[in-house]
């Protein structure tokens, strides 16, 4: 049981580190939001559940914390992405698709 918990925690740590690295390295606010939310949510979930498996008396409270992270992290990242788009932060030069601009042009036309 101990080895299983350590393995799950290790996978979570790898995801957390990749998320933090992506926040430093990616070129744009929106790319950074994508790296810093998806990787970090899965990493924190796996780490907390792994600690709950290693210490079975803590499992229910660990599951509560993991569920809370899983619910609130996408909400806050969506709020930040919407706010940065509305406050006029532009995309980076290499990005190809901009659905928000397409929608604005479509609404101008009709």
């Amino acid at each position: 049981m101990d080895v299983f918990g350590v393995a799950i925690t290790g996978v979570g740590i790898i995801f957390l580190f990749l998320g933090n690295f992506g926040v430093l390295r990616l070129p744009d606010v929106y790319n950074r939001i994508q790296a810093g939310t998806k990787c970090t949510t899965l990493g924190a979930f796996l780490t907390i559940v792994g600690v709950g498996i290693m210490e079975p008396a803590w499992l229910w409270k660990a599951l509560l914390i993991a569920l809370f992270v899983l619910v609130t992290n996408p909400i806050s990242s969506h709020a930040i992405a919407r706010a940065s788009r509305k406050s006029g932060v532009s995309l980076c030069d290499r990005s190809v698709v901009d659905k928000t601009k397409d929608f604005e042009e479509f609404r101008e036309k009709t």
Partner: protein
Amino acid sequence: MSQTIAVVFLAIMAIGIFLCLLRMLRGPTAPDRAVAVDTMTTTVVALLVLLGFVFKRYVYLDVALVYSLLAFVGLVAIARFLERGI
């Protein structure tokens, strides 16, 4: 045995938090810094739970729960401020 491996995991997480701190110091715009703080917060929640496992203290789980709740409320307030002012 698992305690020693957990200490190594804590060191890796500390390096990751330092990378986020660099982005928070360097970030060109305000949403960059907010995203870096959000990532740092989620990492710190996982770090607190793992720290409670290393020290064998049950209280650290309560600290992690309250910390994640306060960080969520704060980040939504920052997003609202960036979107339309106070």
